[in-house]
């Protein structure tokens, strides 16, 4: 029996549960005697609460509590920075004072015996404010850019003299880009059910990072982390919005403690646009200098992004600009724009997607100026090493991605002239862009139990917001243990499971996968140790070094005879499950030797109606070099999802803030537009075979983010090819193209 679980297109192990309603999401863990909480958000965008008329609503039917800063417990808010919290600044302390910092900030929470009663009371609660006009537009003259405080990402970088080289370059491009704020808009709303038992708190809560939610809530309430349990087996779409622990989780816990009963709190769709993070709007400038034969001599990338007044949200806006191209003179500069808004957060491809939109658009502009095919231009500037870090790449298949993508797309038949390709009245544009995302590998742990029936139970805190963590981890365990998939049961989404990093940053496969593999090897070692020490075992007395695992059996090296199976070994050891845990982390020495990133090339075809300004995506081909592909079926699905996200970024998604009060006006699935089925044409994802022994023990690079990065600039570049007009803002909408 040779197991090859990894690399096979297995269907989701949780697919049946999901389509039959068996998968339980946070809001579905209803508890006995549960009450319902509804958040009341501020209706001014800045100012101070003058009065809250709680008395009237407290008398309304079913109302059990009206909690505001006037009567909320003073919480400890001990220092805590999880991996997904901004390094600088201090998180919002909910209901701790009368200050309103942004529109929709929670100012009260109502608890009632039914959702209806809580909603009625929330609607009736009169709150008066001393309101001021908030600053929410990055172009507002009152915005004062600040440099991100040192110590984390986002520092300015420079090599050579980029400005002098730009001034001296025979061919230059200089352009500014404005990309809209986006909200994650997953299908599942944020939801928390909180239940106290004495001083212990259980939270069934939508989270991509249960161990961090545990630590954060413990810090906020000043209690031991061991007293907090966070449970979240399924996430109905996340895209990053559930990486942080937002104020509603604290509110649910406050409410449950106040009323002494379990409390369920689900944010409304409108509230999802207020307090659960967003991709910051960014303003960018790119300046490129090149020789006439298309060698980059200067790359300047300056950008700024929204943040709140109380935290510095830093994303990787300029981080890829140092290593995507070979260029002796590079300068990057990143600033934050503190405004009266909630803190932004990571959204799929955070920073890379926005930053590469600008740079990949500018590179495309340069290709037209030079009269060089945009793929060829990238080839001419392909670096041999990471010139920013002066390190070799652990692997870099960008040119192979271009070759594969170009072939599948049929790029060779492109007419390079703008407006040259047509389909009847329609202008056709073909565009291309690069994608990149780092290969993170954060410390993770996992636990494996082998049962007497020969099956394995595997546990890690982790999360599965859709990429298929349940399935891929099952594959890793099955492969490592040489068991069939149906003999492995993988569980996740509990903070008392072995700790893992955030389910973000495309690092789950690398980090949790490596931990699962390590735990499987550890349990095998434990079984072997017991076997050689067991007088009843045929392997008794053998040295550990003289035995080996072959296809799920423990045998003596050099002895062709099959040894005992897991079942026989566990039974022989008394029948109790044999358990082992293990951790995995990147070797610090390796991290200093290699620059580690996934790469991709995205090819798209759009049509533009020249009379009506309508852009349609007609097809897209993405080719990715992302290391080992654990499950081609899931990986393809993940890439298609990322491409759809990029399509939304390019042509639809935009959170519109009313400058008078900072209100997101289109806070509704009917008004905040994401692509629907009709908008999504045939999308293809292809993978370049890549063996990278350095990134992690599994050789995987992660796919979630790189699949979105590159799509928006490819579309914007295709719109230029179709029309001859360069639109330098996203989303590109009808009004941008009425003059083509």
């Amino acid at each position, binding site marked *: 029996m040779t197991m090859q679980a990894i690399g096979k297109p297995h269907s989701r192990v949780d697919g049946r549960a999901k389509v039959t309603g068996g998968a339980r999401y946070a809001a579905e863990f209803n508890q006995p005697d549960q009450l319902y909480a509804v958040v009341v958000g501020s*209706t001014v965008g800045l100012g101070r609460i003058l009065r809250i008329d709680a008395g009237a609503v407290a008398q309304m039917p079913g109302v059990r509590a009206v909690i505001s800063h006037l009567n909320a417990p003073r919480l400890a808010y001990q220092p805590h920075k999880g991996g997904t919290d901004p390094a600088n600044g201090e998180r919002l302390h909910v209901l701790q004072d009368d200050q309103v910092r942004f529109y929709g900030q929670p100012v009260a929470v109502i608890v009632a015996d039914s959702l*209806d009663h809580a*909603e*009625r009371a929330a*609607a009736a609660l009169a709150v008066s404010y001393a309101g001021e006009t908030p600053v929410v537009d990055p172009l507002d003259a009152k915005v004062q850019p600040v440099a991100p405080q040192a110590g984390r990402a986002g520092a300015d970088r420079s090599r050579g003299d980029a400005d002098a080289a730009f001034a001296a370059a025979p061919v230059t491009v200089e352009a500014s880009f404005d990309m809209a704020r986006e909200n994650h808009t997953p299908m599942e709303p944020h939801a928390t059910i909180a239940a106290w038992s004495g001083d212990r708190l259980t939270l069934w809560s939508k989270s991509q990072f249960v161990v961090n939610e545990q630590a954060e809530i413990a810090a906020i309430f000043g209690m031991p982390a061991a007293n907090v349990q966070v449970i979240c087996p399924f996430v109905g779409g996340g895209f990053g919005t559930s990486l942080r622990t937002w104020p509603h989780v604290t509110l649910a816990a406050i409410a449950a403690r106040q009323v002494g009963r379990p409390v369920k709190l689900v944010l409304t769709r*409108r509230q999802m646009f207020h307090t659960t993070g967003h991709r910051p709007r960014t303003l960018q400038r790119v300046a490129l200098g090149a020789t006439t034969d298309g060698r980059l001599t200067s790359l300047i990338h300056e950008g700024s992004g929204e943040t709140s007044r109380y935290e510095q949200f830093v994303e990787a806006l300029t981080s890829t600009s140092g290593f995507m191209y070979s260029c002796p003179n590079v300068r990057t500069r990143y600033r934050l724009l503190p405004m009266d808004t909630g803190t932004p957060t990571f959204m799929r491809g955070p920073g890379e997607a926005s930053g590469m939109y600008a740079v990949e658009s500018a590179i495309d502009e340069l290709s037209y100026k030079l009269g060089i095919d945009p793929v060829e231009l990238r080839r001419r500037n392909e670096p041999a090493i990471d010139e920013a870090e002066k390190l070799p790449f652990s692997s870099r298949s960008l040119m192979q991605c271009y070759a594969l993508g170009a072939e599948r797309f049929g790029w060779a038949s492109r007419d390079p002239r703008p407006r040259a390709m047509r389909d*009847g*009245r329609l202008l056709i544009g073909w565009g291309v862009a690069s994608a990149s995302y780092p290969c993170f590998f954060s410390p993770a742990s996992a636990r494996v139990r082998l049962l007497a029936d020969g099956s394995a139970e595997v546990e890690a805190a982790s999360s599965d917001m859709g990429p298929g963590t349940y399935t891929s981890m099952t594959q890793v365990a099955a492969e490592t243990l040489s068991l069939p998939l149906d003999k492995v049961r993988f569980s996740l989404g509990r903070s008392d499971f072995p700790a893992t990093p955030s389910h973000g940053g495309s690092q789950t496969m690398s980090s949790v996968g490596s931990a699962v593999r390590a735990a499987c090897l550890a349990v095998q070692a434990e079984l072997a140790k017991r076997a050689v020490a067991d007088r009843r075992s045929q392997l008794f007395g053998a040295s550990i070094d003289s035995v080996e695992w072959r296809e799920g059996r423990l045998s003596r090296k050099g002895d062709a005879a099959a040894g005992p199976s897991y079942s026989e070994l566990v039974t022989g050891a008394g029948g109790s499950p044999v358990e082992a845990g293990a951790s995995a982390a990147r070797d610090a020495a390796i991290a200093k030797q290699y620059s580690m990133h996934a790469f991709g090339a995205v090819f798209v075809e759009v049509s533009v*109606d020249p*009379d*009506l*300004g*309508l852009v*349609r995506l007609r097809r897209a081909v993405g080719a990715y070099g992302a290391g080992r592909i654990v499950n081609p079926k899931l990986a393809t699905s993940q890439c298609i999802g990322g491409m759809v996200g990029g399509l939304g970024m390019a*042509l*639809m998604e935009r959170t*519109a803030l*009313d400058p*008078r009060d900072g*209100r997101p*006006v*289109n806070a*509704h699935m*009917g*008004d905040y*537009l994401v*692509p*629907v*089925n*009709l*908008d999504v044409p045939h999308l293809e994802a292809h993978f370049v075979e890549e063996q990278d022994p350095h990134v992690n023990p599994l050789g995987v690079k992660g796919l979630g983010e790189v699949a979105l990065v590159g799509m928006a600039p490819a579309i914007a570049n295709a719109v230029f090819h179709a029309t001859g007009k360069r639109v330098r803002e996203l989303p590109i*909408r*009808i*009004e941008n193209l*009425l003059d083509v």
Partner: protein
Amino acid sequence: MINFQYARPNEVADAVRQIAADPRARFIAGGTNLLDLMKSDVEQPSRLIDISRLPLKSVEETPDGGLRIGALVPNTDLAYHPLVESRYPLLASAIMAGASQQLRNMASTGGNLMQRTRCYYFYDIATPCNKREPGSGCSAIEGLNRMHAILGTSESCIAVYPSDMSIALAALEATVRVMGPGGERTMAFADFHRLPGDTPERDNNLEPNEIITAIELPPQGFAKNHSYLKIRDRLSYAFALVSVAAALEMDGEAVKEARLALGGVAHKPWRVEAAEAALAGQPANEASFAKAADIVLSGAKGFEHNAFKIDLARRAIIRTLTQAANGTPQSQSSKKIR
């Protein structure tokens, strides 16, 4: 959503009696708009009178060769009705351009006329809105108004009426049949919806306690030369920035008779008979169509974020008339614009 009483009459007269008995009662048919409004607290009815069992579900030919459509005929059934598909394909097309399959299955013919605006501020009860709360002010005029009206606006309201179906009904010169405590009456379609003026809280000219019972179409269906073009930011489940219903009676290469109505641009389906008259007898070419468009849009006024809709509407009118004249109506399935 607040608690409400629920009643389900079986006869039209009974429904009218019930609504007259409770000023805060509302009729509900498919509920595809009313329930949204109730969830947002924009509508807070004390009683829902479910009219879905009333005998208003038939589509019948009228003695003069027209068609009478019961107010409760679901949008889907109407769009696929053989007589509509063959004789009034413009209406079928406009229906299919709207909403989603699931919504069209639920939505009724009469309810479609009663749709309320999709103005962001109207839906957000934390904002002033003259339509929702008369006298409170309009948040859109100086706010985010990309989707708002460019024609027929007032200082009180710049909301648009969002229906697709009604734009075709306006072009086809439908008649609205209503029943009230005083009996039955009919209204020309052009008289059904209103401009906001200083009473934007009133979307239409239904009197209190009246119910729509049927829509009647005249015999002339413009089945040969018509098109409904809807311009929007995504291909489904989005309201029109601009939509155009065009219907032509051709005489060789010339236009004999024209009908033209716009959606997404005003508080009601926008029809300018002078523009239609200007097309009559003219060659069916871009110059004629552009002239008609200019007449339609002569009084158009843009706001901070929607001025582009004037130019867009002009282009959309020309395109739609071209499609109609060529006998190549806009497909609502492929959405590819020819």
